[in-house]
């Protein structure tokens, strides 16, 4: 009996192992699930357009987040929602553990563009210089770095050590310069304007006003380059619109300096009225709801560069050089685009600065540019907005946890 027992046990063991072996040969555990794309699959020519569209999408996400919640920080909106992450911008005390989303979105936009440039060069080889995808990639790399420089307190690149936030402006300048070179080479005039406008923005941020004016002067007054939004998916929505255009808005113009501005097409807003015609409170029930009307659909783009911004940038440069007449000439040129009457030249430099700062605020309202303007002017003693308030986004908790150079 024992012999029989052994025989049968051996028989079954062998059979069981044979089943597993055969099953294993058939790639039992190798399953490819649909949906996600494995990283190596992107190193193909056909994948490059999607890669660049992804850069654009990530840039739009980063921009809409800082345009929406950052508008509280820059006092273009007051917070009307209960979420903690928005509440920090209202109080002005910005802890590093509440800014993960903004930090991550901005850095993803930058990394995707910069890594994508390398992938384009790797896949396209010499031909990359003649492909418009490369120009667009440099543009996205430039604008994402500009957004970072304007919003963060310190720069961190690719898991490296912390640097001055201006490092992002410097990277942006390099990217815009390359974009200009390739756009000119390819005859992409429109993209060339965007790159020059972007470089003007970062040169000004770096204090290179002459360089900034040089670039700005090449951009036509009516030129506009926007981050793209769409009704298509929630990720593509213009969040400034979707978060304000509903009963019980999460952001209200009430309580900001722009609540006092009426009949300015650059700063449109309206009350959130209920059926009884009463102003409905904000979502948190704390403030009267007055909502922005600048963006009237989820598909409305948010400008990244435009001719009016260039004129105002030229105006500021002229003002810095003491040329008030020249400065107001540029200001009025920008106003003319909106059908606004020209302003008289201010009597003093101080008054001129007040006008300029207001005009830039109105022109760039809810475009995620105000914070940087306020921040740099605060450093020059031109406002007190950030007295006892934080003026920038600190290195996020996630970056601190995941970056060995920070721990």
């Amino acid at each position, binding site marked *: *009996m024992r012999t029989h027992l052994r025989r049968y046990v051996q028989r079954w063991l062998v059979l069981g192992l044979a089943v597993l072996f055969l099953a294993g040969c058939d790639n039992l*555990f190798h399953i490819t699930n649909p949906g996600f794309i494995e*990283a190596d699959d992107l190193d193909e020519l056909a*994948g490059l357009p999607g890669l660049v*569209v992804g850069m654009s999408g990530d840039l739009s996400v980063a921009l809409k987040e800082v345009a929406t919640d950052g508008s509280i920080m820059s006092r273009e909106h007051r917070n009307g929602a209960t979420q903690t992450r928005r509440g920090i911008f209202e109080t002005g005390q910005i802890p590093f553990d509440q800014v993960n989303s903004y930090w991550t979105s901005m850095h993803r936009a930058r990394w995707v563009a910069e890594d994508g440039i390398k992938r384009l060069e790797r896949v396209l080889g010499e031909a990359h210089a003649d492909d418009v995808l490369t120009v667009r990639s440099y543009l996205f790399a430039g604008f994402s770095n500009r957004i970072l420089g304007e919003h963060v307190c310190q720069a961190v690149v690719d898991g490296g050590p912390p640097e001055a936030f201006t490092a992002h402006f410097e990277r942006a300048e390099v990217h815009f310069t390359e974009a200009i070179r390739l756009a000119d080479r390819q005859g992409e005039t429109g993209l060339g304007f965007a790159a020059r406008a972007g470089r003007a923005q970062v040169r000004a941020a770096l204090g290179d006003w002459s360089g900034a004016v040089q670039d700005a002067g090449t951009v036509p007054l009516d030129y506009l380059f926007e981050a793209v939004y769409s009704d298509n998916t929630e990720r593509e929505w213009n969040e400034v619109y979707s978060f304000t255009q509903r009963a019980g808005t999460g952001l209200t113009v009430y309580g900001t300096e722009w609540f006092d501005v009426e009949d300015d097409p650059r700063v449109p807003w309206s009350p959130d009225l209920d059926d009884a015609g009463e102003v409905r409170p904000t979502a948190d*029930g704390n403030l009267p709801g007055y909502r922005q009307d600048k963006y009237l659909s989820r598909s409305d783009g948010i400008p990244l560069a435009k001719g009016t911004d260039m004129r105002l940038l030229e105006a500021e440069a002229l003002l810095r050089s003491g040329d008030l007449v020249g400065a107001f000439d540029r200001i009025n040129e920008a106003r003319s685009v909106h059908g606004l009457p020209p302003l008289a030249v201010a009597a003093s430099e101080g008054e001129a600065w007040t006008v300029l700062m207001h005009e830039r605020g109105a022109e760039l309202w809810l475009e995620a540019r105000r914070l940087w303007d306020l921040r740099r002017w605060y450093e020059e003693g031109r406002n007190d907005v950030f007295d006892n308030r934080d003026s920038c986004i600190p290195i996020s908790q996630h970056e601190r946890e995941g*970056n060995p150079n920070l721990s």
Partner: protein
Amino acid sequence: MYRMIWTVLILTILALAAPSAAQEIQLAVQGPLNGGERPLSLLSAPAGLTVDDRPLTEALLLLGERSGVTLAFSPSFIRDDHRVACDCGDRTVGEVLDHMLDQTGLVYWEVGNRVVISRSSAMTRMPERRVLRQRGDVPASRTLDVLPVPDRSLHIPAVRQGVVTGQVRTGAGRPLAGVMVRIPELGLGTITGTDGRYRLEDVPAGEVVLKAAVIGFHAAEERAVVRSGQTTVVDFQLAEDAVRLDEVVVTGTADRQRRRELGTSLSQLTRADIELTPVRNIQDILYGQAPGVLLTANSGQPGAAATIRLRGLNSISQANEPLIYVDGVRLFSQPILGGGDERGGRQGISPLNSVRPEDIERIEIVKGAAATTLYGTEASGGVIQIFTRRGTDGPTQWSAEIQTGVNQIGYIGPPGDDTGLGLLDCRTYENSLGETFADPTCPSDGNWVRDGLIQRYSLSVSGGSSDFDYYVSGNFADERQPIKRGGFDRPVGLRANFNFLPLDNLTLSLNSAYIGRTTEWLQDGSSSAGFFTNVVRGPGGRWMIDGNPNNALGLDFENVNDTNHFVGGLTARYHSGGDWTHRLTVGYDYFNTEGSTLWPFGHIYQPEGRFWKRHHTRATVTLDYLTALRHQLTQSLGTSLSFGGQYFDEDSRRLYSQGYGFAGPGEPTIDAAALTQVTTDRALRNVNAGFFVQNVFDFEDRLFLTLGVRVDGNSAFGSNFGLQSYPKASVSYVLSDHEFWPTDWWEAFRVRAAVGDAGRAPGVFDAVSTWEPISAEGGQPGFTPANLGNPDLGPERTREYEVGFESSTFSGRLGVDFTYFHQDTYDALVPVRSAPSAGFSSRQLDNVGHLRNTGFEARLQVGLVRRQAVDWTTTLNASTNWSEAIDLNGEDISMGWRSWAREGYPIASLWGARVVNANEFADPIIEEDAFIGPLYAPYVIGLQNTVRLGERITASALGEWQFGHFAQNGTGYQNARRGDGVWRPCFEAQRALLAAEAGDPSALDNVTALERVKCSMSDFSWDWWMQPADFFKLRSVSVSYDWPERWLPAAADRASLQVAGRNLLTVTDYDGVDPESGDFGATNLQRRDYYNLPPSRSFVVTLRVHF
């Protein structure tokens, strides 16, 4: 893939066929007939055999070979020391068998093309043998005869017969129904009726030994002399068995084991336990009924899933739900978030609750890795095995159950809030300033609550014969929420279970069930438009019109879940002779939900309307082959070798869509919207396959040593990882089986110890570096980084040590089941943060963690009174669970909403600022980033008292304590700072704070340090709202009455009426909505009480009739 499945199937079929052939060789010897011509009778064939002093088994084998006649017999019937000699070269097979089997008690007969040899008793009473056949609940090796039905006309000596009858009672003298009374030597048996009586007819005259056995009592044995033509009375009195060592359980092998053989603890709930309490679903059955099981109710939304943890959390990144098997078929066990969108679906839909309580025969709860090793990967969270009801031999039995009752909201709100958070009184909301607000949409009777009707109906029919039985049932329920215009839960279920015995040694079981379910939920939780959220917020809510809340607006949203669930399995059990069994199960679990959330057209919130839908489809294929071979090596040493392989193929799909902007009112569809979007489309498939080998060494049926190993592969493992092995070892020693044991007062005692591993696989994409497809630039396809990937990723590996004992003393009056466990989860999957500035922002799982859970579990059963008139049993289930994150790669891991895993602290604990001098009347002293406490209760005590009065009345009460944990009172936090404060416990403090701000510092004299920050409306923080959540809940109370037979209609066999209440009382210092409330409920590791409807109180009357 299909080739692989076919390969497995074909090889498995071959494997089943192979032992059959082998069995013929070993146990039914066959060879070519001498002379090549078949004789008219096999018994007249020439034997051609000469043997000299050989063991009988060997001689029979030779006889088969020499004569060419197939001899079928079981070696277990033949004594090892029986030897024979025969010079029988010229004899026939029949003559040789007459000679060899003389004085052996064995007989033979010719059946078809073989000669069957068996015990004489197997022939004499075949009709009664049917009750002893293997039917899934009798240990095969002990009681199963697998011999063919004999032709009674052959070789049966004439016998004289009598009748044996009697009654079986408990130690207290109560009649005991359902007891199997049998005469093993004769293969006779029957079951006692409701009066405890039995009757065995046609018993051969002579001395017999009767045995009476039933689960829950010690088996008893009586000798009697049966006289021809007379009736012999044999009564039994069975002592209660508090530890049930001979209870048969399922352990992952084909061989059902008795509890005494296991080295681990195992909890079992029977049909009687289920009927004792008013249950709506399986999770209701589990509250407080077994140590080591933590259930948290989460919500009062009808049909919402509870959170279930067996021995705590042993993963910080993967689901901790136990595996669920129904009749051997694995279910996709993780709950799915209900509703069409998070705004409307804040709770889980659990596949577990699709199994209707009416259909359940018993539930086995297997806790800890040492016990679940054979289940392999995915089993480290434990296993819940559900066995559904089957037909029994005998006439058709119908059972009907009708239940009706009401759900009520009961007491709700913090102390002092007579408005019940605005639900019980919606005419007057008040804030801390004393301002009152009236809701013009408040119902005319001034409150939002109602009695929510409960109706449940079920009907089943069962029966069977010796080779076929069936159980078919249908049920319907309608349970409504105790809120006006509130939601409901309406399950409709059908089940059909069949067993066939096409051959004496083959059983085919077909189990199938379908349940369709519709639930509708009120919008609550973290949804600023939700009904409950706004009622509780009062003047701080969203629906303020003309300065007053209009909360009926929150009732206009619809959140509906439609579920279809099918579970089907075909199991073949083959007993190939001796003690060798095989089992093959092919199962399919299909679970589909469609959740929808509607903001109707014309609603003030978004007048254009919005509609979300979430479709989830989950399918699991189970292929499970198991075999077990028992063999008695020596008189005192036996072995049971088990091995087998399992293949599980899980397919999970989800499709989320939404429509925005409708042209007009009416019931919308997504494509009727002006803007439609598919927001998520995922199809995830995961394959887990493996095999195991286990051997149990059995020393004199009292010492058992088990050694085993399981090896698994999983498609979610990294490409470099390979297979994972999980070893196990256990020992069980029944000391009370020794003769020296004082069994007169200490009937049973065993000690046990076990160590074993089990695992948990990472998610489908966790090992792969991926980019996610997105849409951008107005609908163009693009990519964005998703997962960094880790090709070395493997499963978490939980190793558990468990020791314990079971003891039954004083005739079962005191039963103790005690266990200490210590489990370490190595290679825990820790989400390691990667720097967002390097592109991939999501955390990447890595096997770098080490978690630990230790604790005690005790079940104490005390028979306080054992009288015929009163039988009172108290059962205490107590457990502790101390968890600790030993190593998290130096990281603090967020487990969601202020709960963290941090090294050196309980897994999932709350952290935040803490007021050191909380109760002092002074300015607060704040300790930042302090450990607050664990999120899950480390101490759970269930206490059940069951009192039987006379023979007809049974009363039962079940209470449960959970303590030592903390909850986040998000409701209080939000209310205290809204609408000038609408959280009543803060009113006085807030008035004092205002007075102090106005220049009266003395106003704060009676305001504690904690109140000064907690109730502040200017400097608010969640931190102050993390509170101890200790509670006691009276889970159920019931009184059942068994109707006297004289009251019953002629067609009815028995009937009972039960009056019961559920969730009747909560005792707690926690002042949030409910200490069990959990936003997102069972779908998440985090826990947060945030405007979630609390569990309802219910009263029901149940009528059960069997006819």
